[in-house]
């Protein structure tokens, strides 16, 4: 039960942080390309890699860190990043006849998020001496 409360709390915080940051970025860079969602997803992917290096073993979450994991990763980072906005914005680009931008959004999001998660994970392993 405490686990669900932590996920809910983290999910509320993560969603508000995403809305705030993606709004700030969209106002700065304009809305012709979904930069806000891209930045949120890439930064969240780097963070999850970093935290996985600290708290995640091959067989699962390290002993004694389950609550931390539920709050920070499943709650905050899980909710901070989003696939639904990414999908809707890609579809909107396609509907607007912007096939090139849609393709860049898909390839860029996948490539940068996976690279960021890998880099975060490597950095975390170095930091924790693993």
């Amino acid at each position, binding site marked *: 039960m405490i686990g*669900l409360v932590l996920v809910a709390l983290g999910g509320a915080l993560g969603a508000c942080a995403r809305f705030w940051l993606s709004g700030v970025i969209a106002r700065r860079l304009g809305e012709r390309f979904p930069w806000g969602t891209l930045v949120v997803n890439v930064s969240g992917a780097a963070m999850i890699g970093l935290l996985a290096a600290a708290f995640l073993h091959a067989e699962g979450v390290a002993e004694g860190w389950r609550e931390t994991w539920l709050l920070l990763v499943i709650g905050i980072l899980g909710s901070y990043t989003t696939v639904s906005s990414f999908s809707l914005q890609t579809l909107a680009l396609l509907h607007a006849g912007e096939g090139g931008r849609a393709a860049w959004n898909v390839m860029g999001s996948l490539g940068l998020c996976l690279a960021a998660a890998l880099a975060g994970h490597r950095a975390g392993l170095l930091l924790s001496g693993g």
Partner: protein
Amino acid sequence: MAPGPRLYLAIALGGALGSVARHLCALAGIALLGPAFPFATLGVNVAGSFLIGLYAALTGPDGRLFATPAMRHGVMAGFCGGFTTFSVFSLESIRLLEAGQWALALGYVAVSAATWLAGAWLGDRLGQRMNGRPTG
């Protein structure tokens, strides 16, 4: 209440509900299908993409449902945003890669991208149809 705090309250509530729903799906996925492949994350990301496409169409300028800005943000940025997750997807993909399961990792990424977009597209089509006008 001013619109700003009301929007954030709606998004926080939606994000909390969406995240708990995602977590419960993940627990059920592991229990029913095992930990070898991240079926639950794939499922919530496709379902959330479908839902946001459907809801955006139904509550858009030509939509048949009326929604206040707070409701729209609560469902879309809040619930759908909290339910779906790009970070957990990324972590699962690199864990498959680092375990040497290249084909599975590649398949997960490709199937995810294709089905997320198909989900949003289907939701939008269904919403436009329910709005009672021809789809483009």
